[in-house]
């Protein structure tokens, strides 16, 4: 093969051109692109480091991965390492890395339940959209800002108000005291402030857990058939606060009764307990207490009212009620109240002790008949017992109280379907879907309606 050879002058020329092209090219490349790119990256990274030399692991992860790492950290801190956590089917992120050695199970979009082995449920991205039997719900929520005005005991007879009405007071009464609480929270403001020419009480509280949180003032009024307790509330979120009143019975037994929660956001809204006498009497009869003397001993608000659905708190983790230890079944509450009995009833429900569950749901219902979830849970128990008529009644009551919760229509539809009332079932499912189009289970139920697959 002939060897490739250049003349000396051509060779020299080529060498010089090559040297210039290569060296100049490389210098350009290195200076203009690589070094600038890498330099920018290194300098910006070092700048951040120098600005935040002692940032914690959480802060660094937040800077890199965004806010969801807060939730991951929160869940890690608030769940045991043995937890089995159900997480949303569409959740992104590296949950297993942050939550290991906790076991993770993927939730379903189509099936409104969590696996039986799950102990916890992650609440995120509007999931789960179905209720859960909850022991405790820890969440990362924005603060609740609540204005309270005109808290008073009055009469249903027109023109008669109690001497304790704030409007009639020359000197405003003392601030409400935190009386009884089953919550974890930080109170950032509690003071009287002037709003729209009204001197009102302002409570700003951030909950990580709220079963109930009673802010009350001591009063002493006889409870009569005409007694009305009322207040005006303005809150930054609906379904977050309700009016409460404590009744003292003959033998110093105490019970707290509650109204329905606020429905409006950032709007003054009147809350009242108009049939307190009847409620208190019925409750005493149910408990076997004498009803001769009933006095109102405290009035106030419950700022820790749970939201309609857990996902409304946006981010959190639910410890499921599985009948596990931690609830003293034999203890009597110092002061009877609906959330306490509701929790106890959920515990018995998980243990499948149906009679006890019904008993405590019914007590809770008598203390706060305006809480839709008490009725809904009672309905579930009745369905389990095959008492469909009572179940329908309970679900209808729940719907009456909270007509915007699609789940109630779905459960009602299921009972209708079991009873063979296909048209009613269809209507209920359709309504459930209309309210919550993401509740795919209602769509499935509609498709399978009448096919015996429900």
């Amino acid at each position, binding site marked *: 093969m002939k060897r*490739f050879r*250049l003349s000396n002058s051509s060779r020299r020329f*080529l*060498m*010089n*051109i*090559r*040297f210039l*092209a*290569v*060296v100049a*090219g*490389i210098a350009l*490349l*290195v200076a203009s*692109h*690589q*070094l600038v*790119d*890498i330099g920018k*990256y*290194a300098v910006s*990274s*070092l700048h951040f*480091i120098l600005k935040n030399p002692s940032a914690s*692991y959480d802060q*660094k*992860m937040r800077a*890199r*991965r965004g806010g969801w790492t807060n939730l991951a950290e929160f869940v890690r801190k608030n769940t045991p390492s043995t937890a089995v956590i159900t997480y949303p089917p569409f959740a992104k992120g*590296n*949950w*297993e*890395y*942050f939550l*290991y*050695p906790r*076991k*993770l*199970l*993927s939730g379903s979009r189509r099936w409104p339940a969590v696996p039986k082995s799950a102990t916890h449920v992650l609440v995120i991205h509007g999931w789960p959209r179905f209720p859960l039997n909850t022991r405790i719900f820890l969440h990362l929520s924005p603060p609740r800002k609540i204005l309270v005005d005109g808290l008073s005991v009055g009469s249903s007879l027109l023109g008669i108000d109690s001497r304790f009405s704030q409007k009639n007071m020359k000197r405003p009464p003392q601030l409400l005291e935190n009386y009884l609480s089953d919550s974890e929270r930080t109170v950032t403001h509690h003071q009287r402030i002037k709003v729209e020419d009204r001197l009102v009480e302002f409570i700003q509280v951030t909950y990580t857990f709220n079963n109930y949180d009673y802010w009350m003032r001591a009063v002493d009024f006889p409870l009569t058939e005409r007694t009305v307790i009322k207040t005006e509330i303005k809150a930054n979120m609906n379904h977050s606060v309700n009016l409460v009143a404590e009744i003292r019975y003959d033998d110093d037994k105490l019970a707290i009764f509650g109204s329905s929660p606020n429905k409006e956001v950032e709007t003054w809204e009147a809350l009242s307990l108009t049939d307190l006498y009847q409620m208190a009497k019925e409750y005493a009869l149910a408990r076997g207490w004498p009803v001769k003397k009933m006095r109102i001993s405290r009035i106030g608000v419950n700022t820790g009212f749970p939201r309609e659905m857990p996902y409304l708190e946006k981010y959190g983790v639910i410890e499921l009620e599985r009948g596990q230890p931690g609830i003293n079944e034999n203890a009597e509450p110092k002061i009877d109240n609906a959330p306490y009995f509701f929790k106890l009833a959920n515990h018995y429900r998980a243990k499948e002790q149906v009679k006890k569950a019904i008993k405590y749901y019914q007590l809770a219902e008598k203390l706060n008949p305006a809480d839709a979830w008490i009725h809904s849970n009672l309905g579930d128990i009745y369905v389990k017992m095959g008492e469909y008529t009572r179940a329908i009644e309970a679900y209808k009551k729940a719907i009456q109280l909270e007509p915007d919760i699609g789940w109630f229509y779905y459960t009602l539809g299921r009972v209708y379907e079991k009873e063979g009332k296909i048209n009613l079932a269809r209507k209920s499912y359709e309504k459930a879907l209309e309210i919550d189009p993401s509740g795919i289970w209602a769509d499935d139920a509609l498709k399978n309606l009448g096919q015996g697959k429900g």
Partner: protein
Amino acid sequence: MLIVGLLFPTLFGFIISLLIVSNIPIFERISIAYGLGFGLLTLAMFFLNVAGVKFSLINTVILISALMILSLIYLLLRHRISCPSLRELNVLQKIKQTISSLSIFEGIIIGLLTFFLLSNIAISLYWPVWESDALYMFDFRARVFAETNSISEAARTITIISPSYFLAYPPLTSLVNTWLYLCGWAHPKIFCPLLLISLAIVSYYSLREYSRRYHALLFTLIIVTNPGVYFYAASSYINFPCAFYFAAGIMYLYRWMSTQKRGFLGLAGIFFALFAWTRQESIPFFLGSLVILIIFAISQRRFFAPVLFALLYFSVQPLWRIYLAYLFHSQYTAIDTFLASSSFIPEVSGASGLFKLLFDFVQWRKVLLWMRLWIVANHRETLYSLVLVTLLCIDRVRKHLFLFLLVYLNLILFTLASYIVLMAWDWWKGAGASAKRFFIIFPPIIWYFMALLTAKAKDESY
């Protein structure tokens, strides 16, 4: 303890490097020792675990110490190390001499190199593991290995990720992280930036053999500051360790071809094996390199060389697959989907089938477009420079013919592999970022090749 976590594997690698190769500069040896030591340490951890011994600091230290003692005894008996040879090193004096002889240009390059390498360490030490894939797999595996002290146990405890995916990648990087966790490191990102320093030093000495100091330094800077290489050295992905082992493997393979220095072929084989221990996709690039080595061996009548090279590679490459097959067959009721679907090469029947498969022009168009979008667009400077320099220095290609073949054949193999993968897995089109990351194994060898083509040898002038 943290420092011991880094020094112990390096010491192990140092002693092993003495067994393999002699008479190389001390800094080069330390650099080799770092990559080699960590790689072999992970193999030792793996074998211990397969033998039923749980991962722990003490178990690993005992095994590695025993290996080191045996190696030292062998070295002493063979007079490969002695006290006078240690004294002859005169490291400090050599550094002083080198510094005083530096030109301004060289000083600037060393200054830039120092700044970028130290920055990389600072960035890695500061940021915890945050990259998605690392959280999903590489570092997650390391954490679970460290907590359960066992690979099989780890696979049993995870829940979201399927065990097959969890264990899909060979374990080098995860076991390195496991080791660092066991040594008390809160996060293990320190491994990669120190490997980047090793790459810089290995590249420098590999270039220095053929070129002047300023040239070697300049191209070392270009290799180290390649954006892909630099960025992934500060992250927790497996791509940079892959790039290191592949680049070191190619450099030592070529150095062996050009100098025939004893030990370099062994080093190349081990580095390729460690590349396979980091990523299963190493095989086409190993085979490509083996073909070139066979051609070289035939031309030089060094027939044993390919055998040694292949032996070293295949002593490690199949280990993980065998282990997975054993694990999944013995511990899971069904044959795992991963193993069942691991072959992505489409079935072909006969020569016509193969022809149809390889010359589907519609598919080639798609693949080339895809490569332009993901590979060329992200490595424009490197690839254009390669073409330009090859054309400009075409008469010097002959001098580095085997390196030319190694570089170009591996690039062709990458293109071919992309063609086949894209044909089998249409979804891979969406995984361009993964391909882009994988491609960072090439810039170091491409720049190394360009450096040699443009180098003025000590006795040469333009």
